[in-house]
């Protein structure tokens, strides 16, 4: 039997793994990609059904995917089965780990909001006085962001604001109509009066509505002839050479048969997603001389709902001139050292005009409720936020040796709790939205400063943070393990701070930068 050795083993096929495969293979490096799940066949794995044809009429099977608020009966099969691949947490500390193991991972289903981090995030430690910065800056990532934005065809409006770095936007403009409704103009003017900058959403157009690894990254890598992809390969453990201490491949189990396999590679690149990569490192007993591995898990708060109704738009008078459009407000809090708030960091706000009130907004039922809904239809403006959760050492993951997945691999235990900072930030956001709505003389319909539990945003990052000090970080600034130079982690694990931004563009840029450096180092014989 021929024993093949690849240059690089890549674990995971989402945005970070796809980018690593694309960059490395285009540099002439042979790669094997292992993906834990199957490849979806879009033509045959989906079927058109009406709600009444579904077994649970759209309610989803009770108790299934309890942690995946995004799940419904139509899309239930796309998520990881929580019974098959369990994780644990204290019931008092809920955590929503939302996973996809299909080839392409979560890149198949992301919201496509496309932002760069700014130096308010990369150098947050300077601003906040903690001294904990990323070991890289926006200038280091800028050329990679630009390449990623070209591949993903990012649309946006250039603003020139330091907390909202402009990108290499497609055509430099927006394909959607600008927001010209009167309610949007009113909101914009009132926000600007409060020094809140107002822009529009930035997003990846992709190709045919898809901006994923499977259509924008992996086809290029496969075209080089340097990439093999094995699906249904669940990696159990990274293997090491006992003499050198370097990694030399991985043990994996075939999802269908349970057959144990081993693959050899000169370098291992983990790109399985923040928590799966960290779980694999913890189960392998690697890369943790700092004791930091698994710590600093964080993501973004998503929630806060403030709804107001524009009086003149009620009773069927929500015309296009009056209602409609969306606004995006990047972070505007704590951009200066002398700002005084009861929270650090910041949040972005999303505002939509032309929404309707919902049944739960009214203590009514039957005809009376329907009349209220008709009265408010299309007359509402609503706002919500993404806000940064601080990275805290105590928010961490460990291996739960008592719980194993369907293939006998120990599960992850997640121990995360929100602090006052998150609640104070959400309260500030809800009050700010209410203040603007009230100043516009709109009638408040609903207001909450509540938000979803940790994990809901599907933006989890930080459990193998990068840094210059091997005693305080897991990875160096090139995403290499401080402990093992031929082991890299190129997904969101490496984040030091997440910001308020969707992390995808940064994950892609970091993966591209790390992979380019790895290729150069391999050619020099340094790795």
């Amino acid at each position: 039997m021929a024993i093949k050795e690849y240059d690089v083993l890549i674990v995971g096929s989402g945005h970070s793994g796809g980018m690593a495969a694309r960059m490395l293979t285009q540099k002439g490096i042979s790669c094997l990609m292992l993906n834990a799940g199957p490849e979806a066949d879009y033509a045959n794995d989906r079927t058109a059904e009406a709600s009444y044809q579904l077994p649970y009429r759209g309610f989803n099977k009770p108790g299934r995917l309890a942690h995946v608020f995004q799940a419904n009966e139509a899309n239930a099969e796309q998520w990881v089965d929580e019974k098959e691949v369990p994780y644990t947490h204290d019931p008092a500390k809920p955590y929503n780990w939302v996973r996809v193991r299909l080839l392409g991972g979560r890149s198949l289903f992301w919201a496509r909001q496309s932002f760069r981090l700014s130096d308010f995030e990369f150098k947050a430690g300077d601003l906040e006085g903690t001294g904990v910065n990323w070991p890289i800056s926006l200038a280091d990532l800028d050329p990679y962001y630009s390449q990623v934005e070209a591949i993903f065809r990012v649309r946006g409006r250039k603003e020139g604001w330091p907390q909202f770095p402009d990108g290499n936007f497609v055509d430099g403009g927006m394909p959607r109509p600008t927001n010209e409704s009167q309610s949007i103009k009113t909101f914009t003017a009132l926000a600007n009066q409060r020094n809140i900058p107002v822009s529009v959403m930035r997003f990846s157009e992709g190709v045919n509505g898809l901006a994923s690894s499977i259509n924008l990254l992996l086809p290029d890598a496969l075209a080089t002839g340097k990439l093999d992809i094995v699906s249904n390969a669940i990696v159990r453990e990274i293997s090491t050479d006992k003499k050198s201490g370097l990694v030399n491949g991985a043990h994996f189990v075939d999802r269908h048969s349970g057959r144990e396999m081993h693959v050899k590679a000169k370098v291992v690149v983990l790109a399985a997603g923040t928590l799966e990569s960290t779980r694999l490192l913890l189960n392998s007993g690697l890369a943790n001389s700092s004791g930091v591995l698994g710590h600093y898990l964080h993501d973004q708060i998503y929630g806060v709902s403030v709804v107001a109704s524009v009086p003149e738009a009620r009773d069927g008078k929500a015309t296009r001139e009056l209602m409609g459009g969306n606004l995006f407000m990047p972070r505007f809090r704590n951009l200066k050292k002398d700002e005084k708030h009861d929270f650090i960091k910041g949040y972005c706000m999303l505002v939509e005009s032309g929404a309707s009130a919902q049944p739960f907004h009214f203590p009514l039922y039957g005809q009376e409720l329907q009349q209220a809904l008709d009265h408010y239809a299309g007359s509402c403006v609503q706002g919500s936020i993404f806000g940064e959760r601080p990275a805290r050492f105590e928010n961490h993951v460990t291996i739960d040796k008592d719980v194993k997945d369907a293939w006998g691999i120990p599960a992850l235990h997640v121990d995360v709790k929100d602090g006052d900072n998150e609640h104070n930030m959400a309260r500030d956001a809800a009050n700010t939205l209410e203040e603007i709505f009230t100043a516009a003389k709109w009638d408040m319909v609903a207001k909450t400063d509540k938000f979803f539990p940790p994990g809901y945003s599907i933006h989890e990052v930080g459990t193998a943070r990068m840094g210059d000090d091997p005693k305080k970080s897991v990875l160096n600034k090139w995403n290499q393990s401080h402990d093992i130079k031929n082991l890299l982690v190129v997904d969101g694990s490496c984040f030091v701070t997440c910001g308020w931004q969707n992390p995808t563009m940064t994950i892609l840029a970091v993966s591209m930068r790390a992979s380019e450096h790895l290729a150069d180092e391999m050619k020099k014989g340094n790795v």
Partner: protein
Amino acid sequence: MQALAAAPAVPLIAQQAATPPAPAAQAERGGRGRGPGAGPEMLEVTSSDSAAVPVAQFFTAPQFAALRRLSGLIQPAMNGSPGALECGAPEFLDFLIGVSPADRQQLYRNGLDALNTHAKKQFGKSFADVDDAQAHTVLKPMLVAVPWPKDPPREPLQAFLFAVREDIPMATRNSPEFAASAANAGRRVRGGGLVWKPIDPVYRG
């Protein structure tokens, strides 16, 4: 992608709509060859809903009678659309709650029992037998506005009424009777769409 669920106040994470690849491209990607001609033509079969009626078996008779009365109040027939009773919403909820986690079952059972208790105390009869005005007297203290559906009321009866105000309309709208009525009236029915089937499922014997 949230079409099957009640619309949330805060939009849930949006998802991109993946465009199915063209057949040729799919073949290049290693499609599984389950195209037309792979076997005999599919035969037309009838759904159980159109051939039979469900047997209510979870709630007690008094609880189920209260649920039927409540369903008629919350989602009556209106604007040319059938209501919860015409659409079999109570019967479907008897099934759905019967297979739900224990806390959900308890919420419903306690809530329906409470309706009967309050109706008997105030009007000397079960909730199923009160008139509309009397029903409103019973229900009014339990009705609260909720700013965000992910943060439902904590008080059990308020929580129950919040739940049924979500579930009864959805069970009504997602019924075959509602769809048939809409089709007859030339209206579009919301909900459904592309549903993922199990993808390369593991055979576990």
